[in-house]
């Protein structure tokens, strides 16, 4: 029998977030500079499986991806059934910083996508010196809400089907079918109301326009990369954001959409490799 064992290891870590005990699943691979990866809204750390298995990256970086509480293999906190899930800026920042403290990561690079691309801006603004560099994929300081998210969480519409169908248009048409459908599968598996709860952060609680002063890109370089097929966080949103942050570097990625690392890993590698190389050379 032919079998292939991937080098990724997965573990659980227990720590408190805003006073609640959480059991958080994470995967990692590699050695060197810690590179912490943040998944998109309504998905989980599997989005980074290609990065985690890329020796060109793991030879220089300790790549780590965790499932936020309520996502993937991380349970919600005890008592979740008594409330709706809503991600706030405060909770998101607290989650990331608590995970970094729990694993005792020393000035990691943080790379987030979508909501993760938004939160790295807040990290740069409020906690910049804690990070070696920050990378926002499909990130901007604000996007105008353009549809009613209540359709994502109601008992008479299948949550997995509708979340996947909604984001399917954010995948570039050039992306390989296998990876397009892997990306969508993660949305089909998301818990009820979780995508919508993440979007509370994205649409309601994190308008960062005019609030990103004081970002020091000399100390903590900031890279913003957005796929040309992303009409949720459009290239224009990202470029506008970058123009407001001295020293921020923005790149529009061809033939990629909202999920570059999972929808077309080979295409994404062309864009992320020089960024990681520059970070490693510092």
């Amino acid at each position, binding site marked *: 029998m032919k079998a292939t064992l991937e080098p990724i290891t997965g573990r659980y870590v227990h720590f408190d977030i805003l006073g609640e005990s959480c059991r958080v699943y994470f995967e990692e691979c590699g050695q060197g500079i810690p590179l912490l990866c943040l998944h998109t809204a309504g998905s989980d750390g599997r989005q980074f499986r290609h990065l985690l298995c890329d020796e060109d990256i793991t030879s220089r970086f300790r790549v780590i991806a965790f499932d936020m509480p309520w996502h993937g293999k991380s349970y919600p906190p005890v008592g979740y059934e008594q409330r709706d899930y809503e991600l706030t800026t405060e909770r998101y920042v607290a989650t990331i910083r608590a995970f970094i403290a729990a694993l005792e990561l020393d000035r990691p690079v943080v790379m987030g996508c979508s909501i993760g691309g938004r939160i790295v801006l807040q990290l740069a603004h409020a906690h910049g010196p804690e990070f070696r560099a920050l990378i926002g994929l499909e990130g901007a300081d604000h996007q105008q809400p*353009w*549809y*009613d998210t209540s*359709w994502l969480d109601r008992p*008479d*519409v*299948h949550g997995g*089907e*509708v979340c*996947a*169908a*909604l984001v*399917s*248009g*954010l995948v*570039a*048409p*050039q992306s390989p079918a296998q990876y397009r459908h892997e990306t969508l599968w993660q949305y089909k598996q998301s818990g009820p109301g979780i995508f919508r709860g993440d979007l509370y952060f994205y649409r309601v609680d994190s308008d960062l326009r005019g609030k990103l002063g004081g970002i020091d890109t000399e100390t903590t370089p900031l890279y913003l990369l957005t796929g*040309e*097929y992303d*009409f949720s966080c*459009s290239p224009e949103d990202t470029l506008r954001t970058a123009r407001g942050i001295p020293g921020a570097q923005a790149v529009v990625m061809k033939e990629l959409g909202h999920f570059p690392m999972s929808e077309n890993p080979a295409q994404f590698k062309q864009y992320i490799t020089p960024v990681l190389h520059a970070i490693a050379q510092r």
Partner: protein
Amino acid sequence: MTESLQQRFESIAQRADADARLVHRGRHLTADLKVVVGDAPYLLRIRAGRVDGLQAHMPLFAPADLVIRATQEAWAALWEPTPRPGWHDLFALTKRGAMTIEGDSHLLFAHLQYLKDVLALPRQAPAH
């Protein structure tokens, strides 16, 4: 509307029925859609996932569960083999103002992927 764009839209009926998996995925959907291509209205009748009829010149005030309206430019762009960014998806077109979708939103969201896939069928190579 150019003849070719009209023909491409009308190919939806044949293409949908030839795709057993698509019909299966739409098996819980029975609906009448008014689809306006440029200024030409069509009645697209879906019965249990099959395209049961595609009628040009939809009568005035005929009822429809959804009304999907886009410019000729938008449909032509959506159906390019590799559509351009921002013209590649129903919601991308809606967000940019090149398409409107009105009517029974519950039906739309409950069957969203199926409806996206049916309306993108002319993107494929010619059916014959």
